[in-house]
């Protein structure tokens, strides 16, 4: 073996070694990048709390409308404000705890948090404005509040389908950002609930359908999200 040949062989071995190490580095980097990308979605508790509160408010509203509960119509807005206020209070504690959970700062949870925050703000402003407009132009169940009162009543009837549309969009965005395709099924359920509540708008059955829709499209994915987050932290 000549000296040149020996040098060439040594260079080849060195290069092969570099390649092997580079391949190993790339493989490890890919695994870590995927681990970072696939942090579990957090906030399942918040889905459950809001889902239960909204479902309860819808059931109370239905019971008052069909006179199962002998209460003044004012009990409807009171129950809504009480239940959603309690949900906001309880969920704020979970939201703070979520910040210390692994994956909380990741892209999936950041996008999901931002989308749901905007969704909540939209629904909150919509509901409060509608209620304020209703106070300014009183209406009742037989729409005797005049033309404007009928529009306000229609706004309330359409608030429910709009909410399901907003849930669906927020879940679709969360699913895409967190690479959680399973959540898309609940987005579709939410769209189905939207359609069902449009068809039944203005009738008492809309409240029952909406309550069932909220349970299946918010509470159920919330429970699954909690289980998945728990499973990841147990790994």
């Amino acid at each position, binding site marked *: 073996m000549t000296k040149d040949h020996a040098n*060439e062989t040594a260079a080849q071995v060195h290069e092969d070694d570099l390649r092997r190490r580079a391949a190993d*580095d*790339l493989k490890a*980097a890919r695994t870590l*990048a995927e*681990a*970072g990308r*696939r942090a579990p979605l957090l906030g399942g508790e918040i889905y459950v709390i809001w889902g239960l509160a909204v479902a309860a408010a819808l059931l109370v509203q239905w019971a008052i409308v069909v006179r199962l509960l002998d209460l003044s119509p004012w009990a409807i807005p009171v129950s809504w404000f009480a239940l959603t206020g309690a949900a906001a209070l309880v969920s704020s504690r979970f939201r703070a705890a979520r910040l210390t959970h692994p994956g909380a*700062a990741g892209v999936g949870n950041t996008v999901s948090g931002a989308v749901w925050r905007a969704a909540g703000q939209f629904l909150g402003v919509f509901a409060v404005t509608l209620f304020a407009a209703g106070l300014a132009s009183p209406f009742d169940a037989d729409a005797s509040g005049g033309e404007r009162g009928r529009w306000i009543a229609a706004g309330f009837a359409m608030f429910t389908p709009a909410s399901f549309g907003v849930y669906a969009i927020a879940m679709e965005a969360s699913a895409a950002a967190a690479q959680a395709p399973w959540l898309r099924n609940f987005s579709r359920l939410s769209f189905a609930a939207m359609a069902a509540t449009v068809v039944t708008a203005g009738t008492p059955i809309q409240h029952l359908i909406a309550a069932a829709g909220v349970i299946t499209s918010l509470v159920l994915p919330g429970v699954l999200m909690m289980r998945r987050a728990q499973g990841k932290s147990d790994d």
Partner: protein
Amino acid sequence: MTDEASGFDYRRIDDVIHGRVRLAVMAYLSGAMAADFNELKAHVGGTDGNLATHLRKLEEAGYIDVEKRFVGRKPQTILRMSPAGREAWIAYLKGLETMLALKPAGGE
């Protein structure tokens, strides 16, 4: 320095990233966008002090942004890959890919 046998320029490999812990940090942050210190430690390994040293090097190079905040009464350190870090990371990966793609001298 260029490896004459393969034509590969080793200067393309960024020394700031090319260390086991720093490479792992950059890889994790490239996927997660941001992570807190404990989460990063769970994936990257090492001691607090060791990881902090490597994070400081990445921060000094401008590759990561470090945010210190309090959650309730607990301090929390959030690490984010900066735009410069993302560029450096992409360049680093390209360097590695080049190294892997180049054919050995005389090889076919």
